[in-house]
């Protein structure tokens, strides 16, 4: 057999249409063209012969012995057998499940909304700072400035004697804000007592502060 090497397009075209010519599904003109090409090209002719042999081999019945009647009998027995319960019983139908999920989402939304409203309305913190203006504006509040050399014991003693409670301070200039905790003395009396103390540099009512 003469083997030719034909890199031309004809060989590629022949290669492309060989299966369909073998199937007899190629167009008549393709079939005719291929036969003409095979007569001129030994390589394609050899390839076509191999493919023809391949097709013949593939057309042989299988060599794996499978008995059709036995298989059919098994199939019919299978059809007669009670169908196994392959699908579990569905407790929730899809429509009911969808509605339940929707209700759950609505309940969650309501809950989140209630929590939001509560948080919004509960803006006042549970703690107070001494600098909060509300404290300074309390009635009877006094602003006092102790001397820098005043001892802590003397400061505590004075507050205790006058029944005063520190509600603010010291600020940048060392002033404290105090209020009467339960004292029966009037503001004027308290001011006099405070101003009379040698360790108190300033004592003024907060209300009169310009």
């Amino acid at each position, binding site marked *: 057999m003469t083997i030719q090497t034909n890199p031309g397009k004809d*060989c590629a075209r022949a290669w492309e249409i060989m299966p369909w010519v073998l199937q*007899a599904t190629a167009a008549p003109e393709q079939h005719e063209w291929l036969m003409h090409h095979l007569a001129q090209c030994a*390589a394609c002719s050899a*390839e076509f012969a191999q493919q023809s042999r391949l*097709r013949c081999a593939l057309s042989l019945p299988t*060599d794996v012995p499978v008995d*059709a009647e036995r298989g*059919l009998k098994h*199939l019919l027995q299978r059809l007669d057998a009670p169908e196994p319960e392959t699908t579990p019983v569905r407790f929730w139908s899809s429509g009911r499940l969808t509605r339940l999920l929707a209700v759950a989402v609505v309940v969650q939304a309501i809950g989140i909304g209630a929590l939001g409203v509560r948080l919004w309305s509960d803006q006042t913190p549970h703690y107070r700072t001494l600098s909060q203006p509300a404290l300074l504006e309390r009635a009877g509040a006094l602003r006092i400035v102790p001397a820098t050399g005043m001892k802590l014991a003397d400061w505590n003693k004075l507050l205790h004697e006058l029944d005063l409670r520190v509600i603010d301070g010291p600020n940048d200039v060392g002033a404290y804000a105090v209020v009467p905790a339960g004292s029966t003395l009037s503001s004027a009396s308290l001011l006099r007592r405070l101003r009379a103390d040698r360790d108190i540099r300033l004592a003024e009512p907060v209300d009169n502060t310009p």
Partner: protein
Amino acid sequence: MVSDRQPLRIELAPTPQNGHSRAAMNESTSDVDSRDRVLLQRMATGDRAALETLYRAYHGGLCRFLSRLTRRADLIEEIVNDCFWIAWQKAGSFQGDSRVSTWIMGIAYRCGLKALRQRGDEPVDDYALREGRGPSHDPDEDRELRDWLGKALEHLSADQRVVVELVYGVGNSLDEVAAIMQAPVGTVKARLFHARIKLRNVLPTLAGDPPVQQENMS
């Protein structure tokens, strides 16, 4: 009863050498498909005789097709029965978009892949077990041809074997093979191309001939 010696589709894809005309082939294909559609319609109404007829008609072709995936006879029977179990259940929903044979082949192919997956079998390795399994009553010529084919197909992947079987053995078009394998036509074309390249290199050697030398086949 239809013999399983020659599957129906093979009979409907004559070679140019056997003298059948293309028109005659198309007519026969159409006739068989019409008959199969009637059988499916009867199956949809619960007619078991129609199922038996269709089963026997396709058994040989399906077994040969599935033997490209596995060499286990018990598994092939199981896959064929799975295929017809589905066909029995779905006969009423057959849309007629393809030929009945294409529809059944597609079901069988998917059942085959599923069965192999469930057993952890690899069709490629499985195929290598074919040596020496041919029936002893084969004529010598057929046995020689079968051995030659078996050795050649060992060089192909399972997907390539299936494509070669469907194109050369069954006579399907690329579109039909794509429908059966549920793969793009381009993928099928590539598998066929690579399978043919491999076969072109090994077939002459297996036959004792020097390999055919050609270039620019793409």
